[in-house]
């Protein structure tokens, strides 16, 4: 039985929806800019859900007024890493938050093999479960 037959990675916002168009991404960036959040573009090829710290593409972008510059950055990242996961995060520096307020995937590999369930047998017939992406069998940079 396959519960997620497409094996699409579901992390962050909008991940159960079809991929966002550039127009929709622009609207989301605009929302973040209106709130004064700093926006970063990040990429990775390790889709494990606990892999929180993705590599940042360029610098985080502060003090911008318009999404056009960020969309340009996203497209440059897509050009450099066409088969990686790319996400956009919006960081809120306001006291009390100091955390990303938005995070959504804007690029994914053409084929996502999904995860296997790994069972580890422990003492006394105990079993520990963990997830492992089929993609990470290959070394970094050759996974997708």
């Amino acid at each position, binding site marked *: 039985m396959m519960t997620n037959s497409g094996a699409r990675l579901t992390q962050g916002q909008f991940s159960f929806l079809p991929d966002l168009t550039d127009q929709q991404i622009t609207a989301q960036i605009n929302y973040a800019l209106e709130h004064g959040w700093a926006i970063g573009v990040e990429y990775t090829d390790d889709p494990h859900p606990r892999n929180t710290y993705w590599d940042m593409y*360029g610098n985080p*972008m502060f003090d*911008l*007024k*318009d*999404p*056009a*510059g960020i969309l*340009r950055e996203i497209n440059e990242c897509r050009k450099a890493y066409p088969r990686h996961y790319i996400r956009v995060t919006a960081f809120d520096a306001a006291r009390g938050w100091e955390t990303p307020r938005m995070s959504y995937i804007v690029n994914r590999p053409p084929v996502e093999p999904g995860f296997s369930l790994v069972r580890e047998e422990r003492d006394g017939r105990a079993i520990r479960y963990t997830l492992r992406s089929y993609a990470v069998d290959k070394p970094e940079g050759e996974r997708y």
Partner: protein
Amino acid sequence: MSAQSPLQSASAPARIDLAAILREARVTDALEQLDHELVGLAPVKTRLREIAAFLAVEKARSSLGLASGAPSLHMSFTGNPGTGKTTVAQRIAEILHRLGFVRKGHLISVTRDDLVGQYIGHTAPKTKEVLKRAMGGVLFIDEAYYLYRPENERDYGQEAIEILLQVMENQRDDLVVILAGYKERMETFFRSNPGFSSRIAHHIDFPDYSAGELGLIAAGMLERMQYHFDAAAARAFGEYIERRQRQPHFANARSIRNALDRARLRQASRLCAIQGPVDAQALSTITEQDIRASRVFGEASRSE
């Protein structure tokens, strides 16, 4: 059916009132405000009206489905220092925003330092960073001719110019670039960078102010600072302007502002020297002696 109503309304407006476009976008207000606040600059104001009219026509054309490519709006402002280039750039950003040709309408003012890096590979990210900030608004490059240094062929300015040109061409609807600087040096700059010249649609020249206009500017500045000249001081300041204009390094309105600032300094030290209380009248009056103490008068009398 509700689906029919947009079709009907779309076919209705075969005529478009251009004045209404300008009025609705509050462009007329912005132009009138410019007329009020900026003294002189008649050719600049005429050019701005023309540009506003052109943009309104473009807008009307596109709403009637006529061909209207995104117009090239990059400009060059040439003129001596203190002739109001930055102020006008701010207004243009506002007008373009109101007509919907830039999305946010902010003005980013930069010079060579903000665009050109200090070592290899530093320039491109720096320029791109500035361009990103300027997206949706107006990028004002003051003293743009410093970007190009012909005497040093390894100067990084060339790299910044190339990135600028690329963005000016490919992202015309994302930002408007205004280059500003002295007339002669800008002309040399455009001659040696023909790429810029051909991408700039509007060359606007800012004339120097006449003595009378400078007097009006001074009066406006004083009014905003809540000071005033007494009769003798006004006469003396008229004389001051004429003498100052003949001296080197005259920077039009900026020189006038500096002259007024120094007059206020002298007024302050004069008032502090007086024993006893002063009233509001004394605190806001600049007298003849505050003006006459200027170096401009001193040098003239020495040379005569």
